[in-house]
């Protein structure tokens, strides 16, 4: 009984994984090259940017928060890095500055959310606007190239595996550990379940919230640097709009937007799932105009399938309970 329940509540990533496998099978049928090593590798590289961000976003959403400023943080971080490199700051220094800055911006989000107890959506909408303004202010909307040497982050390989994929894997495992094994992880879950109860249990609500948004910031900065390395330079408006893809990945992965329930695995798979849609459309050379329709439909289907599977699991549990109750009989 308890095992079934655990599967029901913890195994939320099962649905999206099944959907991903189905989509992959479909694509394998539609396009012969889909299953090639280089294509899979390409998919994973593409998924790494949103996937890494989704790792951080998972923590935020688990606390029942949301951060729609991550796209702007990405833009600002990339801008800061490119700008610093342009004025010949040593790359490691620029690197550190960018990561630090993104972490601060993320933490600021958390601070504002928890201190003023405003809706996270509106708070981060406000900071989204601000951060974006700051980024344009900083760069005057210029494109700034980054040195090709820096491209290692986007292009390089270690033991034959592309660096972005390695980073994605690394951060995935860190996320898994943080959420599953550390005090912070369980606190995040607890906070998402009930802020009230967390306060009554004397949990450091402020620190937990800020910690989650900090993770959102720092993962965004890593994605920003990978993206920057891969596209070869800063572009105005870079990353703006990516937040919705990231949130979609997390939610598709089974994390409840109301917080308190979700998994790291689900979010990672969710990010890959979304990339697969694009990849598939590219591979079958679909008309560029139908991309959005297909994406929207797939998104809706995925949500519906998820819902149906949850309902079915619930029904099974009910059935078992009914059988048990009927089996009791009337023994007075």
């Amino acid at each position: 009984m308890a095992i079934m329940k655990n599967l029901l509540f913890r195994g939320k990533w099962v649905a999206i994984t099944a959907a991903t496998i189905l989509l992959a099978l479909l694509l394998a049928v539609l396009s012969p090259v889909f299953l090639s090593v280089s294509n899979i590798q390409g998919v994973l590289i593409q998924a790494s940017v949103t996937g890494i961000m989704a790792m951080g976003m998972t923590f935020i959403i688990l606390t029942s928060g949301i951060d729609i400023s991550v796209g702007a943080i990405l833009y600002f971080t990339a801008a800061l890095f490119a700008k610093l490199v342009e004025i010949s700051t040593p790359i490691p220094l620029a690197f550190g500055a960018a990561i630090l800055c993104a972490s601060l911006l993320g933490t600021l989000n958390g601070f504002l959310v928890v201190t003023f107890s405003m809706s996270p959506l509106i708070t981060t909408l406000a900071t989204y606007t601000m951060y974006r303004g700051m980024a344009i202010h900083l760069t005057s909307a210029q494109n700034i190239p980054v040195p090709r040497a820096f491209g290692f982050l986007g292009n390089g390989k270690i033991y034959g595996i592309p660096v972005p994929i390695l980073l994605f894997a690394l951060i995935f495992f860190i996320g898994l550990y943080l959420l599953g094994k550390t005090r912070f992880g369980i606190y995040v879950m607890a906070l998402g379940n009930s802020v009230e109860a967390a306060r009554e249990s004397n949990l450091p609500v402020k620190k937990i919230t800020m910690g989650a948004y900090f993770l959102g910031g720092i993962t965004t900065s890593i994605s920003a640097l990978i993206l920057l390395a891969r596209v070869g330079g800063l572009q105005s408006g870079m990353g703006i709009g990516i937040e919705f893809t990231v949130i979609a990945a997390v939610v598709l992965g089974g994390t409840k937007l109301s917080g308190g329930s979700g998994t790291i695995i689900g979010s990672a798979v969710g990010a890959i799932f979304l990339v697969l849609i694009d990849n598939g459309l590219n591979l079958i050379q679909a008309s560029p105009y139908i991309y959005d329709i297909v994406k929207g439909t797939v998104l809706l289907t995925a949500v519906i399938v998820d819902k149906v599977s949850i309902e079915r699991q619930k029904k099974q549990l009910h059935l078992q309970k009914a059988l048990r109750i009927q089996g009791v009989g009337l023994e007075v």
Partner: protein
Amino acid sequence: SKKETKKTIGISVDQLFESRVGVIDAAKAELDKNGYSYIEVVADGDPQTQNAQIQSLINQKVDAILVCAVDQNTIETALLAAKKAKIPVVAYDRDLPESEAIDSFVGPDSIADGVEAGTYMAEQLKDENGKVVVLELLGALNDQNGIDRSKGFNEAMAALAHVEIVAMPTDWDSAKALSATQNAFQANPDIKAIFAATDTQIPSIETVLTDLGKMNKVGEEGHVIVCGINGSNDGYEATANGIADGIVVMDLKTTGETAAQHAIALIKGEEIEEKVVIPGIFYTTENIEANKDTIWGAK
């Protein structure tokens, strides 16, 4: 009514990005030089905001308006209001071919620019045997300049019957261009040439080619032909280094200056040309270094 006060010109900008900023900066410099002041408003890609901003420029009784429309088909209402208020309007960078409200247009002919890149590419590919696959990275699906560049490019390529063009949307976004290129190569490993609606996407193309081990420079065996339009530093460097074969370079400075001069002339009541096309110039790996000074993006 205003006596000796400075004349003011409203500059309406569709969106801020590098090449647009280049034009505006040139226009502003020209206005400064001639002792005009200006009010700059940015619509951030929203046609309604732009209409509101033009209205607001009219309310502020500016003496002329320079406009780069978010969309050529939805700006007319606002511009007619300007005309009604007897404020001269100069369109820059993005043509408003059907407008009755503008007094002049200064900017590129995007179809011609596309044709130029296409012609060069067709020339390179004409001796290839069998089916040739060319990747086209589109701009935004709703951007007239992007649509026109694509139109011109396709027109020129139509000369070659054995070429198949695979088009991928990018929304002018390098990250999207990157994954689109990557995926396109999965579907068609033997892509022979790539056309980028903006050359700022060439570094992304380079990343993919490097990933695939196809990064051979111009003249080397197995080189993938790369052409683009714009004239950014990305495009310049790539062409100079032999990563790209050539780019169409826009003349932002002349565009901006001419647009500003037109506005000034209109205020003074002087005659001007109704349409000044500032053509893009195609530079190849061979001649781009020599013309570095004329390329706006080159650093």
